[in-house]
């Protein structure tokens, strides 16, 4: 495989098997993936913040979340995803980032979530202030709410350099038809939807379309808000999980997601550093091939 072929594969989002080191303090080579619209590479495991960072003014909880963020970046994390919908999450993230002194490697992703297109810019500005970032790397239209007006705003912001990437989101299989329409009609950089070993509807049309249109895919709800991994942990990990370097269920479930060629990043959420460490371990070691992925599905469905 020559260099040009390698770069082409990465740009198509098929660079799942390509490892690299993005952080000087990352101890081992880790899985990074390309954003098709730019070729920029980001760590394949990010972090969501719905529920987990919504702790209000609780000083001790905020301090703990700051330590969680410190561990996230130390372990090579990049994408941090939030939304104005998540209560105090953006404020808590911003508090943590300020304590860490703007950690290098941060890929700041939030959403615009208001039914009024006119209110979008003001809401994004509030979010930016809460995070304390100069600009967001990615702003997504949350759950397709007033998506047309917000996309116009976001593309104008992108033209002006106020945001680097534009995306749209949904969850739990909602409005996939609308998602497809937007993916075909608008030059969006990212699409975010639910994808895990049990919720695989996006494999039918959304993921192939993302690969075809050169759109990065963010997998939300990788553990079904904890229900999937809690259920899985009641059963033993299959012995053959060692063949893909999975030491625990977190790595097993996350490697299933990020081994899909069209998936760019999975964003599990947690409040615990030990769980975070397990999640980030999914960026290391061997990934399952298509046959092994099917075996993983069969095993989980048989539990």
């Amino acid at each position, binding site marked *: 495989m020559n260099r040009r072929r390698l770069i082409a594969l990465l740009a198509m989002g098929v660079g799942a098997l390509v490892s690299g080191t993005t952080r000087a303090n990352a101890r081992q080579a880790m899985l990074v993936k390309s954003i098709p619209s730019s070729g920029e590479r980001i760590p394949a495991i990010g972090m969501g913040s719905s529920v987990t960072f919504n*702790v209000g003014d609780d000083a001790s909880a905020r301090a703990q979340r700051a330590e969680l963020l410190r561990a996230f970046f130390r372990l090579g994390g990049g994408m941090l995803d939030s939304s104005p919908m998540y209560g105090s999450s953006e404020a808590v993230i911003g508090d943590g980032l300020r304590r860490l002194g703007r950690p290098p490697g941060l890929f700041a992703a939030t959403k615009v979530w208001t039914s009024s297109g006119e209110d979008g810019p003001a809401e994004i500005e509030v979010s930016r202030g809460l995070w304390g970032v100069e600009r967001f790397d990615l702003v997504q239209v949350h759950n397709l709410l007033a998506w047309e007006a917000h996309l116009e705003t976001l593309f104008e912001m992108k033209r002006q350099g106020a945001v680097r990437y534009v995306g749209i989101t949904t969850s739990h299989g909602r409005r996939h038809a609308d998602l497809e329409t937007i993916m075909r009609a608008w030059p969006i950089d990212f699409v975010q939807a639910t994808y895990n070993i049990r919720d695989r509807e996006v494999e039918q049309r959304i993921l192939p379309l993302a690969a075809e249109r050169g759109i990065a895919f963010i997998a939300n709800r990788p553990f079904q808000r904890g229900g999937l991994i809690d259920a899985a942990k009641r059963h033993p990990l299959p012995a053959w999980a060692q063949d893909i370097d999975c030491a625990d269920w977190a790595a097993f479930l996350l490697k299933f997601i990020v081994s899909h060629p069209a998936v760019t990043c999975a964003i599990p959420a947690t*409040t615990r550093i030990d769980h975070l460490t397990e999640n980030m371990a999914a960026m290391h070691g061997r990934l399952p091939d298509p046959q092994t992925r099917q075996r993983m599905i069969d095993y989980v469905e048989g539990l």
Partner: protein
Amino acid sequence: MGVWASYSLADLVLFSPQAYFRLYELHNAAIWPLQPPALAIAVGLLLLIRGARASAAWRVLVPLAAVWSLVAWWFFVERYAQINPVAVWFGAGFALQALLLMVAGVWRRVRIDLAGWRTSSASLPGLVLVLYAVLVHPLGQILSGRAWIGAEVFGVAPDPTALATLGFLLMARGRAVWLLAAIPLLWCLVSAATYIGMGLHAGILTPAIAVAALLWSAVARRGERTATPVLP
């Protein structure tokens, strides 16, 4: 509508049980030592109306109005809204209830009479519900593993305040009573939905206790009307 129907309660409750319970710990610490006076108000009102037969409703409704307005502002707007933007609307509902209680208490055209729990057996369900709200509700939470400093106390937290108010209303007579009971009952349902959204199905206990007390009261009132048809 189709999209909204696809949302579960868990999709709408975007905070953890830990964050929710921690609210009460922080709130109790912030307003200490108002909890003992709040509990004293509940006990004092019970003693005040133990033998009441009529026309003392304002003595109960006005203090309850004050309590509801405090919960509306201090708990919902100042505290709960930090993790749940909808809490501002919950606070508005509690403020409206405070207004209704105040109007019912001071406006003479609103006829509400009290039947003291020592003189009317039909008021016994109300007495039991108030005692549950003031004593059993917070103690049960502590025994179930929550930190004692996070106990939900009447006059400070919404659930015991709503339950105790329903209890006092079960000792009252008059058409306006049902209007005054609407928001407390609605809050019991909202509280249960919040707990279920957090994956805690024990939250169903709050509306279940309220409904059980209402049913008991209806049966007791029917029996009292049959025996001594005094109160409307």
